[in-house]
């Protein structure tokens, strides 16, 4: 279980993930697991829920998407990636327990964010949060989000939100991973624990 956050703005999309501590009961099975999966050149997704289910789904989705993009002779739309994930989640909803945030850039609509929930609902949102830690920052993101932020504002918004969630959720923590996707390409930003902003209780 971990906290995910993704938002979009007119020029690009940044996807952030914070938890590096998947937990088997009370055992930390790994301290370094990457929750930002690349589905295609400019489409990433963050996973929430059962890691095993999420990995299986994203593997299948990656394959479908690359096949699809060869057939279309064009990079896939972000909506297509989200749809592929949704089909898998919805058709197998009895067995699966995974949700996704899909974010990326395509030529048709520019930067977009989609969320596929546990049962297979797919909706597009300007920004979205998910994962166990997200409950703690609904209030913060509702208060602080404004449409049409710049890239730096978005990044700072994501880092702040993730930091606050990590401060309250016992299964989120460690390092903040950000992926910034724009028309030009993809950039991976890592913010280690000691460089995170400090709030009043520290």
């Amino acid at each position, binding site marked *: 279980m971990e906290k995910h956050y993704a938002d979009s703005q007119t020029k690009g999309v940044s996807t952030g993930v914070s938890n590096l501590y998947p937990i088997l009961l009370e055992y930390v099975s790994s301290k370094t697991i990457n929750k930002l999966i690349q589905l295609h050149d400019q489409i990433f997704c963050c996973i929430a829920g059962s890691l095993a289910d999420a990995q299986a789904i994203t593997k299948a989705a990656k394959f479908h998407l690359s096949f699809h993009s060869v057939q279309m002779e064009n990079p896939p739309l972000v909506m297509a990636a989200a749809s592929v994930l949704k089909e898998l989640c919805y058709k197998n909803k009895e067995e699966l327990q995974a949700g996704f945030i899909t974010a990326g850039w395509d030529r048709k609509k520019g930067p977009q964010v989609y969320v596929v929930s546990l049962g297979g609902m797919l909706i597009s*949102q*300007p920004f979205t949060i998910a994962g166990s830690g997200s*409950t*703690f*920052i*609904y*209030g*913060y*993101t*509702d*208060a*602080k*989000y*404004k*449409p049409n932020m710049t890239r730096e504002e978005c990044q700072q918004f994501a880092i*702040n*939100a993730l930091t*606050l*969630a990590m*401060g*309250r959720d016992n299964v989120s923590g460690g390092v903040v991973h950000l992926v910034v996707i724009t028309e030009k390409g993809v950039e991976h930003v890592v913010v280690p624990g000691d460089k995170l902003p400090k*709030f*009043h*209780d520290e």
Partner: protein
Amino acid sequence: NMLEESGPEWLSEEVKTGTTIIAIEYNGGVVLGSDSRVSAGASVVNRVMNKLSPLHDKIYCALSGSAADAQTIAEIVNYQLDVHSAEIGEDPQVRSAATLVKNISYKYKEELSAHLIVAGWDRREGGQVFATLNGLLTRQPFAVGGSGSSYVYGFVDAEYRKGMTKEECQKFVVNTLTLAMSRDGSSGGVAYIVSIDEHSTEEKVILGNKLPTFYDQ
């Protein structure tokens, strides 16, 4: 008889104050805030309930959890504080009120399911906020509670600063309640605010349409 109707669901569901409650201290006093929704299952059985209950002139508590349990604790402590303050011949300390609440919450922790935040002003320590969740007693600069509080932990962590004025505290409380009420299904209605300082105890209601608005998707 399986075919017989057992009446509407809300008659048999437990009545809870789903709730968002908050209390914050500032130099010279405290501000308490709560929403006004009381739910029984999926029904709202009271949309204008004041969950800020006086324990003494300058000590209030905020109720959350089971409505019956919370109200009963508040009534008992109100009585105990009256007796206590008559015995000592002066106004009781906030810590005393919080301790009385804690004693009940801890002793009956298996039977009760209510969380009260106690806040007020006394001559010795000024404004104080105490949390009594599950029978602990701890003093904090501010405390949030109830089902709606989970959604605003991030917001209060980010926005709280030491040394806020009374007006800033009141705004902080109203903003926090508004955000929680808009996300938590068990919180809603109007916002009740109580401000306590050396000179006065002021109760205020802010109606739903006068609450601040944030970006809504």
